[in-house]
């Protein structure tokens, strides 16, 4: 079936199998491999992308369901400014180890900080509760997001 998507501000039209998952459309069809496939069951959040401005898990969605939507992946999250404040903060404090969960966490945290000016730690933990990190125990990530929130946009 034909679908039309806007991904990172570029339009894509494609003919997809109805069963194609959104995450695989992004990775295999478009080659945007920054979005990861982790648990495949909607638990880990590695596949998080922004769909019409809100973070969703792209492994639990058919590409067909996203037809006509605007999608932002990790490749497009910084709006051409190098790294955004969340990415910078995580990078500077070396808040991650293996980095597999990074793209999902950056997407979820960036969206959260755009809506919350002065979050506290529990707000950040709640915002990241859909993203699993198996390396860090979360504290360095939470600290990095809190630090990013203090930066002037």
């Amino acid at each position, binding site marked *: 079936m034909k679908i039309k998507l806007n991904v990172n501000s570029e339009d894509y039209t494609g003919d997809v199998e109805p069963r194609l998952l959104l995450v695989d459309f992004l990775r295999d069809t478009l080659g945007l491999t920054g979005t990861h496939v982790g648990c495949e069951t909607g638990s880990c959040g590695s596949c998080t992308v922004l769909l019409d401005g*809100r*973070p969703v898990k792209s492994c639990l969605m058919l590409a067909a369901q996203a037809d006509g939507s605007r999608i932002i992946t990790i490749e497009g999250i910084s709006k051409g400014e190098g790294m955004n404040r969340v990415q910078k903060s995580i990078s500077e404090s070396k808040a991650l180890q293996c980095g597999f969960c990074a793209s999902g966490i950056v997407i*979820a945290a960036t969206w959260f900080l755009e809506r919350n000016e002065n979050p506290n730690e529990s707000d950040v933990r709640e915002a990241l*509760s859909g993203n699993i990190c198996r390396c860090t125990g979360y504290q360095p990530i939470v600290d990095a997001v809190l630090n990013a929130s203090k930066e002037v946009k």
Partner: protein
Amino acid sequence: MLYPPQINYERPESISEALSLLNEHSRPFLIAGGTIGVLNLKRRALSPDLVIDIGRLKELKGIDFRDEKYRIGSAVKIYEIIDSEFNGPGFSLLKKAASSVGDPLLRNMGTVGGNVCIGDPSNDLPPALLALGAELNIVGKAGSRNLNISSFYIGPYRNLLAKNEILGSINFAEPGKGYRWFYYKHYIRHLDHSVVNVAALAKVEGKKIDDLRIAIGGMSVRVPTLIETSWIKGITAGQEELQRVVKLASEKCLCLDDRHGSAEYKKNMIEKVTQMAFLSVVGGVL
């Protein structure tokens, strides 16, 4: 690797088109958000001859408040409940239950209708909607019918929605001023099925209870269930009444040993959360 089987997919433009598709197929499968639907396809738990995506139907959208009654379209996303401006005690109860669903990302995807219709005993919205006395507006080819949510569930993952029907909207009256509400979900790990969740609403006049509604869900019960509390109306509640409500709740325990806990643990948890709910909404009387 988890992958859906070959499927046919349609996204109808109206409810009537969706109903026609339902009637024309022998194994149709409705999805809206897809958080459970797509997952079940990936697990090959289903082999539908058509996947019908009703997630964008305008007729199933919107939260309205008219004549002290809410109408929530079944394709309203869970986050829309949380972001809504309504703040009466009844809607606040539903908001709390909605914000207990999954995680923020899943709440951006999943719909109210999905949470109600899946029939997972541990889903968050059904106990809240039971306490609110919600009516389900169910649409079929021949017209629509209303069914109280208290008679909707007939077993785990089973309900009275016919194969060729669609849940159109969920409707309930705002209990209004003077009502106190409570929602609590007990789980072992985040994203696990809850062991037990409880929703409660009460109005206390002076020292007498005017209205008390408690509903429980979770893996400790067969289906989300309302506790029979109509007898308490007009009574000044004390320890005796509390114990009676707790006992009525624990009688609803399915109480099987499984990975969510032992039978005894589940019974204890039902008793504990029912007591918490009772004390919270009846409050100062005791």
